[in-house]
């Protein structure tokens, strides 16, 4: 798709440029000054403005063609990035939002809505981060609680009953790690979705539109087709979390982002993603309409394909696809004769514990226990591997 600066509809505030966009910010400032100048004294600055705009286009192309994984994470988290509510507004007609999990509540972090994309009736399930502070708090910054996953599931069952295809839009930092979430069974809610989505008798398309945060993303992400926006990411753990555990330093997130292979391109190479959807020049946040249009076209085309397949075949293909995840990376390890644990060297003399006073032994034991205790708790964060 050709881009020109006139396509760029979103004006960024000075603080909304990403750290690696300094030059673009500077060019924008110059253009803004020229415009103000022109408006004040009626002089014609259009030629100079066009020249600067061409420079800016070139600069954006240069930057965005070589983003590092960590920069992509930053783009995926950009405060102006289109959210599921934007997609509902610009891509879906006749929106009928359905609320509630019929059990506990209505999680605002997951929106479930009937609607029409192109000529297709669909159920849209999407994680919502919220636009302003009030909304962000209401939808918990896009971190769903168990009732969100349960709501998604019963609406998806409804869609199955009436043969309505399902489209899920993934955009979450992760499922919420809170006391209430644990009390109400976050793990069970996600697990149930994984199992049920693998056998729902309707086509399912999942698209990562921003952040694909681990199990919280996967909880609405089992699909016949998985696509990612060009500058979204999908990861087993947040780069910060991974850095905190493996680098022992959360500020090493940059390295972790690189190691985790979380970008659309990398995941495509690993065979985990079916398609990459192009974003507008300089990221989706610079042109909502173009990006959302691309997503819409992908959905329409893919739904057409999927609907041609008989549902039994679709389910079989979905199952085969899930079962094959990671299979090309298995390797056979030569099995040696079963290792017997090296027996402690028989000491010439039997150990006589009495030689050390009971107090000294006790003290040593307590020391060791204390050490082991701290290991215990340090290692607990291993369990944070996959929030």
């Amino acid at each position, binding site marked *: 798709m050709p881009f020109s600066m006139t396509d760029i509809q979103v004006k960024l505030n000075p603080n909304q440029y990403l750290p690696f966009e300094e030059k673009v910010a500077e060019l924008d400032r110059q253009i803004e000054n020229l415009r103000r100048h022109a408006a004040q004294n009626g002089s014609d600055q259009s030629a100079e403005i066009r020249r600067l705009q061409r420079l800016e286009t070139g600069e954006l192309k240069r930057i965005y063609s070589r983003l590092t994984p960590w920069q992509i994470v930053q783009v995926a988290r950009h405060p102006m990035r289109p959210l599921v509510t934007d997609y509902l507004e610009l891509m879906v007609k006749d929106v009928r939002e359905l609320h509630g999990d019929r059990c506990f509540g209505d999680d605002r972090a997951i929106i479930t809505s009937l609607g029409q994309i192109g000529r297709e009736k669909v159920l849209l399930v999407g994680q919502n981060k919220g636009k302003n502070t009030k909304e962000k708090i209401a939808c918990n910054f896009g971190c769903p609680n168990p009732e969100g996953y349960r709501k998604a599931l019963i609406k998806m069952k409804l869609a199955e009953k009436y043969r309505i295809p399902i489209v899920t839009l993934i955009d979450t930092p992760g499922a919420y790690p809170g006391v209430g979430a644990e009390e109400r069974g976050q793990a069970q809610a996600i697990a149930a979705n994984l199992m049920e989505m693998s056998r729902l008798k309707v086509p399912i398309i999942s698209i990562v539109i921003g952040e694909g945060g681990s199990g919280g993303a996967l909880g609405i992400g*089992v699909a016949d087709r998985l696509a990612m926006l060009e500058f979204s990411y999908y990861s087993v753990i947040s780069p910060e979390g991974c850095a905190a555990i493996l680098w022992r330093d959360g500020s090493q997130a940059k390295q972790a982002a690189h190691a985790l292979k979380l970008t659309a391109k990398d995941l495509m190479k690993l065979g985990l993603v079916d398609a990459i959807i192009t974003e507008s020049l300089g990221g989706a946040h610079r042109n909502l309409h173009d990006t959302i249009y691309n997503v819409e076209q992908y959905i329409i085309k893919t739904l057409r394909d999927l609907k041609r397949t008989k549902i039994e075949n679709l389910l079989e293909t979905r199952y085969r696809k899930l079962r094959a*995840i990671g299979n090309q990376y298995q390797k056979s390890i030569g099995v040696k004769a079963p290792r017997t644990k090296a027996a402690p060297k028989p000491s010439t003399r039997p150990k006589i514990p009495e030689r050390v006073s009971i107090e000294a032994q006790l003290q040593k034991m307590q020391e060791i226990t204390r050490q082991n205790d701290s*290991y215990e708790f340090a290692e607990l964060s291993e369990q944070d591997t*996959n929030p």
Partner: protein
Amino acid sequence: MAKGIMAAKSDKSQWNGFSLKPRKQMPEGLWLACPACKHMLYKKTVAENMNVCPECKYHFRIDGDTRIKQLVDEDSFEQMCVELGSDDPLKFKYRGDTYKNRIRADRKKTGGIEAMLVGKAFIRGRGVMLGVMNFDFLGGSMGLVVGEKFCRAVDRAIEESLPLVVVSCSGGARMHEGVVSLGQMAKTSAALAKYDESGGLFISVLTDPTTGGVTASFAMLGDIIIAEPGALIGFAGPRTIYETIKVELPAGFQRSEFLLEHGFIDMIVPRNQLRKEITRLIDYCGK
């Protein structure tokens, strides 16, 4: 618990993510202190008591081989897919170390190839497909091999109409394998959907700890879910939760008893009753 977390923070320097030291290493000598009641215990007595503290019934964590020995009829475990290993899909490097090295080190340490053992076994004469996770191997984390072994066990359970028993003990998905490991959650759950449709009985046994991607997939999908007493079971680790909400976590939070109270497990069974309870359930529900 918060105190423990602080200790963990100050102890950072000794910790490389997945500790190479065996956990709760039995100290040299004949005695050990119970981490729960602090009683000094004679090691042999503890081992003879299925690694349960005779004083306070604290359940020590045990490795996969010990678990199998305790659970199945003598010498009845017939292991399958022993040779299956991971080829490091991401070529994962961190802090001058590599995932490959970690695998190699843990293979040496455990004498096994991966974090899960699967095979056919008999429990009090009942044939079962058994899966047992080994925490000593990269924190029992689920990577592509664990996922595949689990699925092959499910396949064979379907083929031979056997009940499936899986003892979980895991820190969650294996981050060194990125989204490949995340995908194992979907993969194992899909296999269980097939198993469910075939009418098979899946008994999920949760032991200390069962968290993250393992809890949020197959572990919580048991037709019947059993937990050992006092096991840590949850989605997010306590440290993540603590760091998110900055409020001290309630006592007993995310322990087996807490899950029972909140309706997420069927029963708590002490280690020495596991064989009996599993066979009784198989007799009720199995084919």
